[in-house]
């Protein structure tokens, strides 16, 4: 891939390579919704091929799908698009299972996709609200690693939160 062709084209294409070798060709404006990629692109003499060894192709694909939606709508400053984006976001997180949600969140955090992290952490928070400790553990497959007595102590000290 030659690096001499950045003179006239306005939309530069980047190749993103996931941990499992899957590659994605995306417009720069889309990929730079991710802080980590934006930083790499801003470095001078950056390559058009970016390897992302910490992200699996399936989840990178989903992250990029989100970026594409938000990059497109960002160019348009109409109020109506906010609503459209909100709807789209709602659908995006609606039926995520725990495993996908976890991997997406890890990928979004690793790639510094701040807005996507906000969306996903809100989804996690909404799944926590109103649940008991055991239910939260079950929902997110969290194993208790407290020493004997530690959890009881937390419950005792904050008994009002466990009523």
């Amino acid at each position, binding site marked *: 891939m030659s690096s001499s062709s950045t003179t006239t084209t306005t939309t530069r294409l980047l190749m993103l390579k996931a941990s499992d070798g899957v590659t994605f060709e995306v417009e720069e404006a889309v990929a730079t919704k991710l802080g980590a990629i934006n930083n790499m692109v801003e470095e001078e003499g950056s390559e058009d091929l970016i390897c992302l060894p910490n992200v*699996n192709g399936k989840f990178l694909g989903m992250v990029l799908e989100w970026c594409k939606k938000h990059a497109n709508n960002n160019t348009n400053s*109409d109020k109506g698009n906010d609503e459209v984006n909100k709807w789209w976001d709602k659908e995006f997180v609606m039926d995520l299972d*725990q*495993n996908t949600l*976890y991997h997406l*969140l*890890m990928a979004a*955090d690793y790639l510094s996709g701040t807005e996507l*992290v*906000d969306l996903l*952490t*809100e989804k*996690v*928070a909404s799944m*926590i*609200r*109103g*649940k*008991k*400790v055991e239910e*939260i*553990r079950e929902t*997110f*497959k*969290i*194993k*208790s*690693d*407290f020493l004997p007595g530690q*959890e009881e102590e*937390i*419950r005792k000290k*904050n008994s*009002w*939160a*466990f009523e």
Partner: protein
Amino acid sequence: MATTPSSSYLPEPVIHKILKRLPPKDAIRASATSKPWRLAWITSPVLAFDESIVPFKHSDFFDYVDRSLALWRDRCDNRVNMEKFTLCADVTTEEFFSRLVELVAIATSRSVKVIKLRSCSERFYMVFHSDSLWPLLSACKSFDVLSLRGFQLCLWGSLPEMSSVKKLSLAALFIDENGLKNLLSSLPLLEDLDIGFCLGFVELRISCPKLRTFEVILSENPPQNVVINAPNLQYFLYQRSSYPLGSVGFSNCKLLTTLRIERTEFGTANALDEHLSQIPLLENLMVKACRLREGIRISHSNLKSLTLQHNWRLKKAEIDTPNLRFFKYVGGIFHVSTFRYSSGLLKAELRLASSVFDCTEWFWFIRLRNFLESFSNCKILSLHCYLEGCAEELRDSDMLPDPFYELTHLSISNLSLPITQYSSFLKAMVEIFPGLETLFLETMEARISIEFDEYRYLNWNATVYSSNNDERDKICESIKGATNKILELFGWTDEHYSENESDASIYSDLNNDMNIYAANPHGALDIAL
């Protein structure tokens, strides 16, 4: 990645982000799931305490905050900074106020960035300029956001300069003009100001050299005047939540790009335009609920987006904005003497309200047709009409005006006309607006949306508001009847559209609403927009 990792392995900053979205009760429960979550909860740099949502009251509440902060300080040594400190307490006595100040001292000693203090007491607690709070805040060079709510600020003397503060938010405060002046002049680098429902002053005089955005919501009667002198102001929003109209004066705001005003008195039709001529860079303008009896005149070469909303009794308008790309209008039909916009690029959305279309006025649709003439060079034109009653005269097609081809999106709400009477009404609408791409109808029994795709295939879906099965079936039949009528109007044959019972799916959800999806010729189901 063969094994399924557990969410307890989320990085601590991510857990912080989750926890700060939760009320304390839920956050504490989540923190009792495992060590990483517990540790994340204790070390979270965002500390928020709200007396109204925890069971501890008065001095117990302050004890609770003390304990939590002690735990945080125990875990996070002096190198760790606090991001945000929010306290909402029932501050009624000097004792509680001094405990609040002690807490602020802890936050400022940890280079906090955002401080939000709120009193949820029924009576305003009086905070004086001589109080220890101000020296404490001015000594903290890290914080850039200050938010105060529910106090009476008695700032009659000068305050020490708080040179780091960039954003100030004042809500539900009692503060007099002098106090406001003293507070604002202690914030030389203020960029962002937000004032909501504050009382105690007759005139709000803002003179801040660095100010970029200013939002103000007022409700007092008589209205408080707003006078602004801010050479760097870019965004200004003025809202009044009730009548009578307020007044706004701005001078020296040459960099303003967004201006939104509500319930404001202008005097003559040209008064606003005279203001606008002083703001050459303005791009977005919204004028809402201003009484513009004499009409409105807007001429601006840079304006890109204009919203005129709820300016009831607006009779005429002269709008000369050659670069306008977005126009939103909510109200009745007005006389458009001039309307210049970016030809072929304007997206216009018109919402015409029921009182204008009560259908008692004969030939109202001719007036509508003439009104729309001004919008014939739009890129996208959507029209929403709220109708009342039945438009009898539309049944007689001889009386219809010439077709208007430019309208692409039409939505009609008519909550008094039953669905069975729609077909003749729709016929007229389709004849007046033959270029429609989407048509949305809301009746007393159902919502129907009809869309023509790029190949002119028709997709439609409907939601029926009825829990009674028989009634629902009946309504469904009428919807089919109405839709078939539209098919006929567009001269469609089986080639374009087939209504195949076996392809049509009927869903029934928990609310007993009913969605009917008619299949298009490709056999795919259409999803509601």
